[in-house]
């Protein structure tokens, strides 16, 4: 039975909140809440997969958003070409995400540290440009997807509430899967490689193959998030894979607390709520002071330095803060 401390209470309440979102939306009559939280839940899946390689594996990928795009595009392209069945779209999208992760990972993992960061960034940008060049599928403007994945009588993705709960179930499943993964023998190797890769090799581990496997697993899970995102927005465009989106994912993971089980979930909730709330708060408090200028439109001006602040003073993220850690 987990201890009843601040951190666990916050996590428990967050999950409870997530479970109750559709009910709340129904009662209040506000579908925006449901839309917002569907997006949060989907991106939390992506953040959880990034936390696997970054938080536990020490592999800082600045190109993780590419898999959001890959998953989304495979789904979108298949749908466009008339293949509407989810039973074909989803497995194919996952396999192709895995293949991309395999190739990109195989090349990138030949390097370490800042090289690795730059290279994953460059490869993701390459995938972005490939997306831009797909003129048949909308290129820069993107591709509208007219129907969500068809799963026959099994599940109706067009129902907003059903879709939300599917995403939430997949999120919780992912969190659980990652938790089991990092505590298994495989996970110990991945964590050891993060901690001291030379020692891993010295004690007898061919670390490369384990890191690559971890990278592929993370890419595949993120591909799943991509499929969900494209279904959710009924749209896919290269913008989803832009490197600043990868940056956002990194922020979500660090904000929540890198290398913790629920960090990515908390971080995504916090980050996206902040994105929504910050302009609103600024509009109420700062705008009246500068009539005519409307500073709240430029809310990202606050977000930037805020990030710097978190990095410098709250490195353990929200999870660390809740545990009572000081500057990590």
């Amino acid at each position, binding site marked *: 039975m987990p201890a009843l401390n601040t951190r666990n209470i916050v996590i428990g309440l967050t999950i409870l909140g997530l479970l109750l979102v559709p009910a709340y939306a129904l009662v209040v009559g506000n579908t925006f809440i449901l839309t917002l939280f569907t997006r949060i839940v989907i991106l939390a899946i992506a953040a959880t997969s990034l936390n696997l390689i970054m938080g536990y594996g020490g592999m800082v990928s*600045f190109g993780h958003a590419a898999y959001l795009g890959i998953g989304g595009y495979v789904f979108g392209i298949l749908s466009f070409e008339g293949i509407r069945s989810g039973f074909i779209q989803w497995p194919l999208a996952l396999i192709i995400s895995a293949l991309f992760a395999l190739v990109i990972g195989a090349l990138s993992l030949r390097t370490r*540290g800042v090289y690795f960061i*730059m*290279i994953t960034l*460059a490869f993701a940008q390459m995938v972005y440009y490939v997306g831009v060049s797909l003129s048949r599928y909308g290129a820069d403007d993107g591709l509208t997807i007219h129907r969500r994945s068809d799963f026959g009588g099994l599940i109706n993705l067009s129902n907003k509430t059903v879709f939300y709960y599917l995403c939430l179930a997949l999120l919780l499943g992912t969190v659980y899967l990652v938790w089991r993964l990092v505590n298994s023998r495989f996970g110990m190797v991945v964590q050891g490689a993060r901690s001291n890769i030379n020692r891993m090799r010295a004690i007898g581990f061919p670390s490369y193959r384990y890191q690559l496997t971890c990278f592929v697993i993370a890419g595949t899970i993120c591909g799943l998030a991509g499929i969900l995102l494209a279904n959710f927005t009924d749209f896919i465009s290269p913008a989803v894979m832009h490197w600043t989106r990868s940056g956002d994912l990194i922020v979500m993971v660090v904000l929540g607390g890198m290398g913790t089980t629920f960090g990515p979930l908390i971080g995504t909730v916090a980050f996206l709520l902040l994105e929504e709330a910050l302009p609103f708060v600024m509009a109420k408090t700062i705008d009246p002071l500068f009539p005519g200028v409307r500073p709240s439109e430029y809310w990202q001006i606050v*977000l930037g330095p805020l990030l710097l602040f978190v*990095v410098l003073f709250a490195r353990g993220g929200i999870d660390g803060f809740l545990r009572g850690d000081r500057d990590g």
Partner: protein
Amino acid sequence: MLLFFEQCLNGLQFGLLLFLLAAGLTLVFGIMDLVNLAHGSLYMVGAYFAATFTALTGHFIGGIALALIATLLVGMAVEVIAMRRLYGRDHLDHVLGTFGLILFFNELVRLIWGPAGMNLPLPSWLNTSVQILPGVYYSMYRFSIIIVAFAVAAGLYYVVMRTRIGMLIRAGASNREMTGALGVNIKLLYTFVFGIGAALAGLAGMMQAPILTAQIGMGENILILAFVVIIIGGIGSIRGAFIAAILVGLIDTVGRAVIPDLLKVILSPTAASTAGPALSSMLIYLLMAIVLVVRPSGLFPAPGSR
């Protein structure tokens, strides 16, 4: 053939621009061990400053000069206010912190200059063609970019290789602690180096502005190319950055011009028109991938560097 030659010159020009950007990046990384994603923001700021000052003064060269000084100052200010606190930290901290700076700069520029870009019109004496070879004409402006960039590159080489300051810079790149122990004012050196890097980035932005206009977010796209240049050339190596930048500039520019036509020979027109641009965009990254497989530390890694 003439077109090919012109594309080669364009590639050279683009490569030199990339070098200016990459030189600043690699200097800062080599000496301060700092990964600066906001380098592209300084490129953008330089472009906007140039457009503003030339419009204000009505004078092209004067505007450029003022913009250079302004960018240098902004760079040094950023170093003192933000970068100093990041030295010695994990590279991930650098990535996050400078990513925050990108957001900040993009919004600040949008606040001050508005969301639409800014034009930097060329004075008439630059807006002509020059005859570089008998019967061969080339844009005067692009030609002057090549000259200026070459001059800056040569100047950089001279300073780094032949002067005392340059020696300190190279020493700092090879061995940080020793240089500090020798009594050199490291803080001042760092601020100076960062400022120079910023000025170089700003200069590249200014030179590109008349061609592509000053826009929000213009720094990010070219920043990644600068990273690719550094990876191919070898981190910490100015010489490597130079060679790699020329290589990347040539391959990218000439590739984009030539590949779609080449593909039309092999594939059907429709396939070629899709694959052409895609392959051209990917070319540089393919080159980077090959370098990574064959020589992970780059073509000319600085001696003693990681």
